[in-house]
């Protein structure tokens, strides 16, 4: 049996930041990830990270923009905390060696971003995630944190509402291990791949969120799924909001900057949910291109600025989109981008199970509420990753060693053996394909009871098919088909929660837009959804939103 004080699932920014903190606090901490840390999805973040660094800006303004962006669903105590801590958190990364883009005078440069009233997004050209992930991994090396690379966590082990550790497959050998820990920090990212059209990497499958759900932890606000307005048509590879932050236009087939109809003030830099809906409306009303995209125009920025500030965007557009933004328009369409919901946590990352913590996209603190602002997710990971690491270390120091029930490992090994030995059945990839299109078509940017009901039935049918899923590969060694199969299982559970939560919420707020209930309804729905697993499917309850100083008002850009 492997034993540690703290085991962190996921090696992106949140997980690694938590690891550094826990290690510095003297805990025996290990990180477990299905990928090598530098392959984590945090690496793909492009545009930047927010902090009020300028004297003309303030944490209050940052917090207000965040709360307004969230359509007033964010918990304001958490938002305050994050925005106050942002300058420190970013400067710390600079001290660790992060190569941020600079101003003429050598200070950290900041650019305008969607939904922000001030240019407060720090950046490293348009590869901010890569730069930060590299830097934080260097610190993990320096601190000597052990990483179980290419280990896939399959289940959380919880008994008497106390977390005991987890089970995981060592991918190379296929062996199933029990990992005993006083504290587990889930930092395994979002659930983008529940959707077929997503900017997320192929491995961003919501494993951490689903593991918590399967262990009886309620999931918060899962109906709030962000769709990013600018992804390459077809491949859905992300074209950073930085492209609009630096001055890019969105145009329809009539050549109009259509955002003037939807957000006359902020235009292309309105919050993401608003821009994504505007695009979808243009496309549905016949003013798109080939009925599936609009155009992003960067030509007026000029080659020099594009090369300096948006080099990755140019490369991606040329290579994956076949257009050079210096001379041509980029065809873009909205696609799933971020999971606002997740494992509910307090301000220190503690989840509703003793010894369980969560941070980053897989957690719901909630600082993003119904719609996240660009540049706030990287910030979320490092601020709350650090706090979860500190709190878990404190807990582990006090907590006595907990027992790890042998039966948990035995059952999990048995479940995986059964999967591997099944000779025929449905392929996981087929289920995944059907699930992805159902989710995008029926639980996407615009939702309606009718469509949601169909999605619910479809997913139920897919879940039944999944009971007879076949891995089609019975080898133990490096069995990526097995991993994909388990991921699809997780995705199905989460899809069910997203749909149930979306069906119940009879209002439109942030990224959750109901055609049959197009207005925000603060009297009935200014509250967080909680979905807990039962034999009959997700059971919903609600909890209040924490409001400190910003009373809900109408949201316009």
């Amino acid at each position, binding site marked *: 049996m492997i034993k540690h004080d703290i085991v962190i699932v996921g090696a992106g920014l949140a997980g690694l930041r938590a690891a550094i903190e826990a290690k510095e606090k003297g805990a025996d901490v290990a990180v477990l990830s299905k*990928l090598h840390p530098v392959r984590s999805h945090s690496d793909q973040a492009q545009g930047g990270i927010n902090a009020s660094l300028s004297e003309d800006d303030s944490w209050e303004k940052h917090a207000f923009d965040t709360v307004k962006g969230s359509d007033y669903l964010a918990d304001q105590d958490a938002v305050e905390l994050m925005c106050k801590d942002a300058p*420190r958190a970013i400067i710390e990364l600079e001290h660790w060696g992060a190569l941020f883009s600079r101003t003429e005078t050598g*200070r950290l440069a900041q650019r305008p971003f969607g939904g922000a009233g001030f240019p407060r997004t720090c950046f490293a050209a348009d590869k901010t995630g890569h730069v930060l992930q590299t830097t934080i991994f*260097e610190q993990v090396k320096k601190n000597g944190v052990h990483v179980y690379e290419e280990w896939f966590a399959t289940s959380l082990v919880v008994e008497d509402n106390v977390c005991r550790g987890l089970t995981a497959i060592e991918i190379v050998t296929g062996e199933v291990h029990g990992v005993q820990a006083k504290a587990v920090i889930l930092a395994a990212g979002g659930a983008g791949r529940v959707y077929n059209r997503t900017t997320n990497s192929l491995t961003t499958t919501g494993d951490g969120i689903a593991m918590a759900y399967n262990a009886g932890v309620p999931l918060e606000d899962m109906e709030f799924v962000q769709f990013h307005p600018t992804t390459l048509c077809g491949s859905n*590879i992300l074209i950073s909001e930085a492209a609009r932050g630096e001055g890019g236009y969105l145009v329809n087939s009539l050549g109009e900057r259509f955002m003037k109809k939807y957000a006359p003030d902020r235009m292309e830099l309105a919050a993401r949910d608003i821009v994504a809906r505007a695009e979808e409306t243009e496309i549905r009303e016949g003013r798109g291109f080939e009925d599936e995209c609009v155009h992003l125009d960067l030509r007026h920025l000029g080659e020099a600025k594009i090369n300096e500030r948006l080099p990755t965007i140019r490369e991606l557009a040329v290579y994956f989109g076949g257009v050079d933004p210096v001379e041509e328009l980029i065809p873009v369409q909205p696609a799933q981008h971020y999971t606002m919901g997740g494992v509910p946590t307090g301000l220190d990352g503690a989840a509703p199970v003793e010894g369980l913590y969560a941070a980053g996209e897989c957690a719901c603190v909630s600082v993003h509420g119904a719609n996240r602002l660009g540049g706030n997710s990287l910030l979320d990971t490092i601020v709350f990753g650090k706090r979860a690491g500190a709190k878990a270390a404190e807990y582990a120091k006090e907590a006595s060693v907990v027992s790890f029930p042998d039966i948990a490992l035995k059952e999990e090994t048995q479940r995986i053996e059964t999967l591997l030995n099944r000779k025929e059945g449905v392929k996981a990839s087929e289920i995944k394909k059907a699930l992805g299109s159902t989710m995008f078509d029926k639980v996407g940017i615009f939702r309606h009871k009718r469509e949601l009901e169909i999605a619910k039935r479809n997913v139920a049918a897919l879940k039944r098919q999944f009971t007879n899923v076949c891995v089609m590969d019975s080898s133990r*060694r490096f069995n990526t088909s097995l991993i994909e199969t388990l991921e699809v299982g997780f995705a199905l559970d989460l899809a069910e929660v997203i749909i149930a939560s979306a069906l119940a919420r009879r209002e439109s707020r942030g990224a959750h837009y109901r055609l049959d209930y197009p207005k925000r309804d603060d009297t009935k729905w200014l509250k967080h959804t909680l979905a807990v697993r039962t034999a009959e499917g997700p059971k919903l309850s609600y909890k209040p939103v924490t409001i400190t100083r910003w009373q809900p008002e109408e949201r316009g850009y």
Partner: protein
Amino acid sequence: MKTQEAVFRIFRFNPELSEKPHYQTFQVKIDNRMTVLDALEDIKHEQDATLTFRRSCRSGICGSCAMKINRLAKLACKTRAKTEMDNHGEILVEPMENMSPILRDLTVDMGEFWREIDRGTPWLVWEETLAGTIKENLLTNQQQRVPDTLANCIMCGCCFSDCVSRVFDKNFTGPASLAKIHRFVADPRDEVGEKRVPTLVEMGLWSCTHCYFCWSQCPRDVRPVAAISALRILSFNAGDTNQGARHVRAFMNSVKGTGMLNEARLYLETMRWTMLRDLDLIVKMATRGKAPSLFVRPIPKIEEARSLFQLTRGARQK
């Protein structure tokens, strides 16, 4: 969009089933846009679920899907299938080189690569004069230019796989490792900075043969060989007397002195006493009149040759 049949010949190896690898051929319908990764995903999901490879971001930034495609290490997600088909008539896919063991099919154990990266203290050493303050170091984009380019490295391993020197010299730490070290040497914040350089001789700084494969195969245009050159210049200027540095020095002295390459002196100054190992060969060459002369007459316009040094120095400073 126009489609065509592509032939994928793929290296297969599962030590659980057989000790011997083999090649398997798959036919895949491809269009002009499809990447090799798209095709591998198709094969895995439509034809053979046992095909094993790593992948994640599918947009050229995570570095998971490095493999040999028609004999060169590349990211599968950044390699267009049609181009490979047009140039080679088939798409031969194999695991990367210089790393072992092969775990299964196209996945290799990258431990060797990571251990080399770790040899170089791969983090910023900075005993924080500003620690605890909310003040950033002041740096210009210009000062960050070199580290910034080098920090584009995604640790995919393509350069290491195709490194010719690494094949013969397991002490050579490899292109990515040296690029990473130069990233810190060139960072004004790093307190060790150029003091990192003296340790590099032991890590094989002079083993690179400048074959430029690491430059051509890097999917992020990091140009590790340029970092290696820069580190060599620093090492050289710091008085490095390693064989590699002596070779460069002797080369320079010869051209400066005579405008010609004095092969005998180049050999003597580079090898010093280790020439004794080749003594029998030297004697044989000398007795048969094949040994080059120790004395070379300077060319008539020697000043022109010398001025070349000024020119290159000026260009480098620019």
